[in-house]
């Protein structure tokens, strides 16, 4: 068999964004031998694109801030479906996780007194996001990457894991191939942490890169883990809409955090018409009040409605376009030039300035940007234990976007970068601890390895089948049209049929060329995961007959007070993808009061 290269580690981490790197560091600190495998070069994972900042209740800018306010904001933003224990851990531990980055070399922007500065963001009561201009993710990934390398983590880059194995009920290893050569490699491990990120590559308009194909979710599902809340897919309200080739590229929420306003083709600042009851008390109801807040008086004025949660803003933009008040290219105007001078904009939003200048020929210090919703994040994912991030499969952990629970039905901006470091750390520490209790490495059957390899090289032996890129395009069309920002039963039902047909078509694909750095073959393998996860999203979206957070059903436009008690869970039952309702854990009385009535 073509499997000469084999490695053994106490803990194997799959994915090298913020969560994977932080998990690898934690496992290493706990004394484990650690392998870190990633599909791209080190430092190119999706974290590098995060712009606005990392949320943590440091209380630097507003001393009134503390974990309780952050917890409450997160739970309200998630529309009641968050796992309260994850939300509490996250709010309590984020400040330490952010400060420790500074000890490892991260340089965040400062306040006058020399402490870390924080900026306001949607759904956060106080200015809470530690940031580095609009390139916070780059600073975090570079810091974590260099720290992990110097701590002695073994890095395997441009190496794609495509199958996990369990032996006697516990995780035992992972099979991967090197992208540069196409050679196979087996990783045996006592524990595995999944940190593979999201699923955005299934949609036409997305801010996500080629890597986001749901590998971790699909592989975990295949070995018995459950997928929770998959219907909750976040459309970031502000992606570029023009030119067509960059449609979907992210425009940071930091633009609105720094005072940017949203207007329609009639010049109206329309968000004032879309303030939900839940946020009425906390949101400015006149432009004057919003402007006074933006000018700096944040104690006596409420936040502008542009800083409502992402689900609310995205849907408002869609409604304006549908009402015929969209921009020439079908979006809304996002205007920072009207509120800030050019020097301020260039200092606070340098990469946005360059992005628009170079890709769209627009000078954002003079003109408004055209923006519209872009698929950005999935709140759903692998179901995990809140404290350890362990999945239903013993020894298998999941942290970051691949995991579910923290964000409920809608994620607040800035809560992803903090999620990565908080649960990355917890998963890595827990994985190392359970690895230490294992006697040795479990033997994976050689014939199973052989069969798995034969499956993935099968398309090279075929002729005249589909090109994998055609299937990918078709999937993007299906999900974009039928599992998009607003949903209805019939199209969702159709989408499930379409996805199943595409899964069959994928099986008949043929691949030209060799295995060495062959994007056609790589895409074919990734599509196996992506189609499986797409089916889980469509099934979960069909099952939830209400509108809540990021999930909007035209045929069920209201939230159902009964359904807030249940999460949608997808699991394998005898080879069939099955939906079950899982009770949402209820917070203790004091936290309940905190959520409903405030701190």
């Amino acid at each position, binding site marked *: 068999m073509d499997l000469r290269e084999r490695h053994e580690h106490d803990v194997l981490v799959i994915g090298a964004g913020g969560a994977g790197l932080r998990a690898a560091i934690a496992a290493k600190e706990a004394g484990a031998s650690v392998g870190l495998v990633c599909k791209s070069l080190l430092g190119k994972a999706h974290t590098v694109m995060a712009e606005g900042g990392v949320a943590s209740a440091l209380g630097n800018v507003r001393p009134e801030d503390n974990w309780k306010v952050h917890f409450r904001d997160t739970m309200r933003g998630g529309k009641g479906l968050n796992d309260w224990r994850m939300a509490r851990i996250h709010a309590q531990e984020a400040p330490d996780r952010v*400060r420790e980055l500074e000890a490892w070399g991260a340089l965040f922007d400062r306040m006058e007194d020399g402490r870390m500065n924080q900026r306001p963001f949607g759904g956060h009561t106080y200015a809470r996001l530690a940031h580095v201009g609009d390139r916070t993710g780059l600073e975090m990934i570079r810091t974590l990457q260099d720290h992990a*390398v110097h701590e002695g983590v073994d890095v395997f880059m441009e190496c794609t894991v495509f199958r996990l194995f369990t032996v006697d009920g516990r995780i035992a290893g992972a099979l991967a191939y090197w992208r540069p050569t196409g050679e196979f490699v087996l990783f045996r491990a006592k524990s595995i942490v999944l940190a593979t990120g999201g699923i955005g590559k299934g949609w036409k308009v997305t801010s996500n*890169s080629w890597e986001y194909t749901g590998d971790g979710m699909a592989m975990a599902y295949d070995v018995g883990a459950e997928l929770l809340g998959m219907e909750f897919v976040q459309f970031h309200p502000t992606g570029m809409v023009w030119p067509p080739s960059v449609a979907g590229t992210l425009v940071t929420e930091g633009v609105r955090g720094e005072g940017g306003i949203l207007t329609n083709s009639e010049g109206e600042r329309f968000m004032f018409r879309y303030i939900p009851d839940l946020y009425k008390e906390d949101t400015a109801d006149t432009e004057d009040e919003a402007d006074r807040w933006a000018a700096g008086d944040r104690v006596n004025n409420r936040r502008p409605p542009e800083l409502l949660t992402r689900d609310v803003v995205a849907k408002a933009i869609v409604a304006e376009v549908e009402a015929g008040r969209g921009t020439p290219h079908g979006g809304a105007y996002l205007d920072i030039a009207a509120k800030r001078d050019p020097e301020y904009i260039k200092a606070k939003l340098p990469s946005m300035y360059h992005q628009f200048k170079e890709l769209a020929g627009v000078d954002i210090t003079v003109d408004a940007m055209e923006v519209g919703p872009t698929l950005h994040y999935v709140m759903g994912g692998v179901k995990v234990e809140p404290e350890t991030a362990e999945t239903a499969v013993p020894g298998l952990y999941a942290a970051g976007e691949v995991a579910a629970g923290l964000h409920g039905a809608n994620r607040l901006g800035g809560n992803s970068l903090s999620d990565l470091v908080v649960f990355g750390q917890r998963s890595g520490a827990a994985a190392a601890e359970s690895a230490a209790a294992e006697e040795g490495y479990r033997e994976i059957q050689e014939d199973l390895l052989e069969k798995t390899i034969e499956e993935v090289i099968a398309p090279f032996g075929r002729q005249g089948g589909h090109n994998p890129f055609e299937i990918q395009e078709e999937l993007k069309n299906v999900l974009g049209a039928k599992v998009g920002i607003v949903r209805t039963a019939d199209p969702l039902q159709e989408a499930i049929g379409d996805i199943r047909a595409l899964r069959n078509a994928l099986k008949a694909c043929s691949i030209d060329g060799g295995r060495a750095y062959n994007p056609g073959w790589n895409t074919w393998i990734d599509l196996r995961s992506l189609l499986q996860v797409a089916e889980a999203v469509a099934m979960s979206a069909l099952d939830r007959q209400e509108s809540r957070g990021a999930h909007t059903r035209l045929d069920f436009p209201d939230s159902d007070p009964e359904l807030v008690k249940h999460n949608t869970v997808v699991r394998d039952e005898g080879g069939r993808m099955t939906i079950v309702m899982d009770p949402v854990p209820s917070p203790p009385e004091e936290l309940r009061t905190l959520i409903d009535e405030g701190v």
Partner: protein
Amino acid sequence: MAERTFEVYRGDDHSGELEPYTVDVDEGMVVLDAIHQIQRTDAPDLAVRWNCKAGKCGSCGAEVNGRPKLTCMTRISDYPEDETITVTPMKAFPVIRDLVTDVSQNYRNNEAIPRFNPRPKDAEDGWRMQQYEVEKAQEMRKCIECFLCQDVCHVLRSHSKHEEFIGPTYFVRTAGYSMNPIDVEDRTEFLKERGGIGYCNITKCCTEVCPEHITITDNSIIPLKERVVDRYYDPIKSLVRLIRRK
């Protein structure tokens, strides 16, 4: 929509040639879009690295008409309509396939840099720094590791001194650590010996190609060179060292 002709390198480090492709070009398209279109229509096995497609990750560096560029930020309309656009891999590195090169030496060079080493905390909750102090280092921290500066640097491109010279990318990285207001590590010996900073003769090619507009030569390499000169080539200090050694 207009048709344009591209020539793309197909092959590995031993052999290869420029392959012509016709691409339907839409408004605003960048060179990476053309490569992706070729993958979808003509050559699914055409190898290219990319991730963010927004100039933030530094994966898609290649040479467009011989100039090192991020292909995701290079608009096709920047080239005259009748001009053939040639896309070739970065010349300073061995080719793996097509536009993908072996950049692993860069990662080894990075590992050799003495790590960040902070002074004791100023307060229980960390350090106090002023914005103007952090901004100098932040310029270096903007580096997206696209390796275009490595590609254009003649020490690496023409003389292949990868083992003796860490290159502009990693002088920027070293400067990022050393300019961090709380860092106390001494990297001068590293810069002189393993870093090989003496090979740089300040032609500023690296600064010209940097997509993040980092003033690599003036703000990182020259100040680092000055430290090395102060330590090793200052005649009075050398004399003092000589006497002490005896």
